[in-house]
C-alpha cells in the first residue's frame, strides 16, 4: 500500500461523511496532509492528541481527523485549548485557526496564550482573507488589496502573525507555506515537539475569495506566488530590507527556552499545600 494511503487509513475518520467542505485546490487540504505526516513522525498515540480548531474554513479541519477533536467558537480556540491542557497536561494539544480567527476576533487570546507559554501548538492558516464568510478583508490582508468589504483597496496595514507571536513571548515561532510541503512537515513536527507555546504561521491561499479578486490566478498560480515570495530564514537574514520587499522568510524564526506554565504551576501547588498545612 502506498504510504499516503496508509496515513489516510490511519488518521482520517472513516465514519465521517466525506467529501470535505473545502474548494478544490484550497491550501487547507495541503496543510491537513502535512499535519498528518508530522504527527505520524512524532509517534504519538492518537488518543493522546487533541485537535482544537476555531471557526472558518481552516477550522473545519478538526472534523476529518481521527483524534480527540474540538471545533470551538470563532476566535476562541486557544481558550478552550488552555482548559484542556491544564486539566490534562499529558494531552498533546494542537490548535488550528484562520488568520481572522487568530488575530482579529481572537487576537487577545493569541497574544496572551503566547505570553502565558502553555505547552500548546498553534497553527495559523494565513490566507490573507476571511474565506468562509466570502472574502472580507482580515488583519492580514495587504494594504491596497481588494476584498468584498474593500472594493477600492484595503486601507489598513497588515499584521505579521509570526512577529506578533514572537513579540508576545512564544517559545517557538516558525513560518511555512503550503507550497514548501516538506519544510512544512518539518516545522509542524518541531512545533509539536517543542516544550512551550509554539506557533506555525502557514502561508496559504484562498484562490476562491482572494486570488480571483486580486488577479493572482488560480490555486496553482498562487502556489507559484508562494514559491517566488518565500525566502529561507537563513538566507533572509543576509538580505537587506529592500531585497526582502514583497518577500517573506520561512523556517524556524524563533526557538528559545522559557518557563513552561504547567511546570511553574506545579510549584504553585506545592507552595499552596505548604501554606494550607501551616494554616491548620
Amino acid at each position, binding site marked *: 500500500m502506498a504510504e499516503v494511503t496508509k496515513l489516510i487509513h490511519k488518521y482520517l*475518520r472513516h*465514519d*465521517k*461523511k466525506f467529501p470535505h467542505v473545502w474548494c478544490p485546490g484550497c491550501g487547507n487540504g495541503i496543510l491537513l496532509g502535512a499535519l498528518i505526516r508530522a504527527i505520524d513522525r512524532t509517534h504519538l498515540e*492518537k*488518543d*493522546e492528541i*487533541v485537535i*482544537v480548531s476555531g471557526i472558518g474554513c481552516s477550522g473545519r479541519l*478538526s*472534523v476529518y481527523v*481521527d*483524534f*480527540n*477533536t*474540538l*471545533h*470551538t*467558537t470563532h476566535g*476562541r480556540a*486557544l*481558550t*478552550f*485549548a*488552555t*482548559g*484542556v*491542557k*491544564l*486539566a*490534562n497536561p*499529558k*494531552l498533546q494539544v494542537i490548535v488550528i485557526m484562520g488568520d481572522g480567527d487568530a488575530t482579529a476576533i481572537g487576537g*487577545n*487570546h493569541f497574544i*496572551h496564550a503566547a505570553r502565558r507559554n502553555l505547552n500548546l501548538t498553534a497553527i495559523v492558516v494565513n490566507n490573507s482573507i476571511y474565506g468562509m464568510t466570502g472574502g472580507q478583508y482580515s488583519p492580514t490582508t495587504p494594504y491596497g488589496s481588494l476584498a468584498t468589504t474593500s472594493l477600492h483597496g484595503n486601507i489598513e496595514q497588515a499584521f505579521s502573525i509570526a512577529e506578533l507571536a514572537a513579540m508576545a513571548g512564544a517559545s517557538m515561532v516558525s513560518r511555512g507555506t503550503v507550497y514548501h510541503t516538506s519544510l512544512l512537515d518539518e516545522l509542524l513536527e518541531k512545533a509539536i515537539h517543542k516544550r512551550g507555546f509554539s506557533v506555525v504561521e502557514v502561508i496559504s491561499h484562498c484562490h476562491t475569495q482572494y486570488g480571483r479578486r486580486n488577479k493572482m490566478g488560480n490555486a496553482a498560480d498562487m502556489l507559484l506566488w508562494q514559491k517566488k515570495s518565500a525566502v529561507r530564514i537563513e538566507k533572509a537574514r543576509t538580505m537587506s530590507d529592500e531585497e526582502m520587499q514583497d518577500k517573506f522568510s520561512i523556517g524556524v524564526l524563533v526557538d528559545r527556552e522559557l518557563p513552561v506554565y504547567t511546570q511553574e*504551576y506545579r510549584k*504553585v*501547588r506545592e*507552595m*499552596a*499545600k505548604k*501554606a*494550607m498545612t501551616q494554616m491548620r
Partner: protein
Amino acid sequence: MLLQGNEAIVEGAIAAGCRFFAGYPITPATEISEVMSYRLPAVDGTFIQMEDEIASMGAIIGASLAGTKSMTATSGPGFSLMQENLGFACIAEVPCVIVNVMRGGPSTGIPTQVSQGDVMQARWGTHGDHPIIVLSVSTTQDCFSITVKAFNLAEKYRTPVIILADEVVAHTREKIFLPHPGEVEIIDRIRPNMPPDWYIPYEDTSRGVPPMAAFGEGYRYHVTGLVHDSRGFPTQRPDEVKGLMSRLFRKINQHFFDIQMVEEEATEDAEILTVAYGSVARSARRATREARHRGIKAGMVQLVTLWPFPRQILEPKLRKLRAVLVPELNVGQISREVKRINQGVTRVETLNRIDGNLITPAEILSRLMKM
C-alpha cells in the same frame, strides 16, 4: 464558622469536586477568584486568571471536556461576555458551573450595589433556543449547598448550570455549617463503559443524557458548536437537527421534579403568598413571620431554581390564594413568569426596587398588610 457568601461558594465547589477554575476579576465576584487561587492548587486543582471572561468560559469548557469539573465566576459585564461560549456548552452538552454575582446594570452600572437584573439574561442570554438550569442563593449556607447542587445537576444532565448570587449574599459574613466531605452527596457524569468502537457520543438514551468520555480516555470523538448528528458530526438533515434540539429540551423537561427546588414557609393555609429569591427572600421570610404574628395568613415560597421555572410547584398553589406578591430588585422579571402561569387565576402584585438597595422586611410587611 463564619464565612462570606463568595467564600462559601468556593467551599461548595471544592466539596462538589471542582478542580478547575478560570476567571477574570470583577466586583462583587472577585473574592471567588482570590480564594480559588490558593484553595484549588492545595487540592491538586488548577486556578487560572484568563485575559477576559470570554476566555474564562472557553477554558472551563475545555477543562470539563478533559474530564475535570470546572467553574467560573463573574458579574454582569463579564456575564454578558460569556454568553456565546455558554451556548456552546449547551449544544455540546458540557457540564460546568457559572456563578454570576449580580450587581446593578446595564453596562458598568453600579458595581458595588445589589441587583437581580440578570434573571432573564440567565435564561435567554445566549442566542438560539436552548434549555438552561439557573439556581439562586440567599444565604451563606445556600452558597455552599446550592453550589454543590449546581455541580450535581451539571454533571447529571450534561449542561451548564448558572448560579445567580447577588452583592448582598456574596458579601454577607454569617454562620455556616460545613459538612464533612463524606456527608456531601456528589454526582459525577456518567462515563461510557462500552468499547470505544461502540461509543456514540451524542446517542439518544432514555434519560436523554448520553454518557460522556473525557479526552484522552480512548474514545476519540468530535465536539462542535454546530448542530450535529449522534456521532458529533455537523449535520443539516432536518430529522437530525430536530432530534438533537428536542433531546436537549427533553433531557431537562422530563426531569423537572428533580431540578425544581423551592423552600416553603407557612404555605399550607396561606391566603397571601410572597414569591421571592436571592437576598430578597431573606427579607420576605422575616416579613412573612412578622405578618403571621399579626394574624395575617401569609406564606412564602423561596425559589431556589429559577429556570426551568418551578411552574409545577407554584401552579397548584395559586388557586388557593387571594393574592401573590413578587418582590424583586429589578423592574419585574420573575413576576412576569408568575403572571404568565397565573393566567388570571389570582391577583399578582409586584414590589420592585432598582435603586441599588435591598427591599426591607418592613417594605414587604406593609404591602402584605394592605393586601
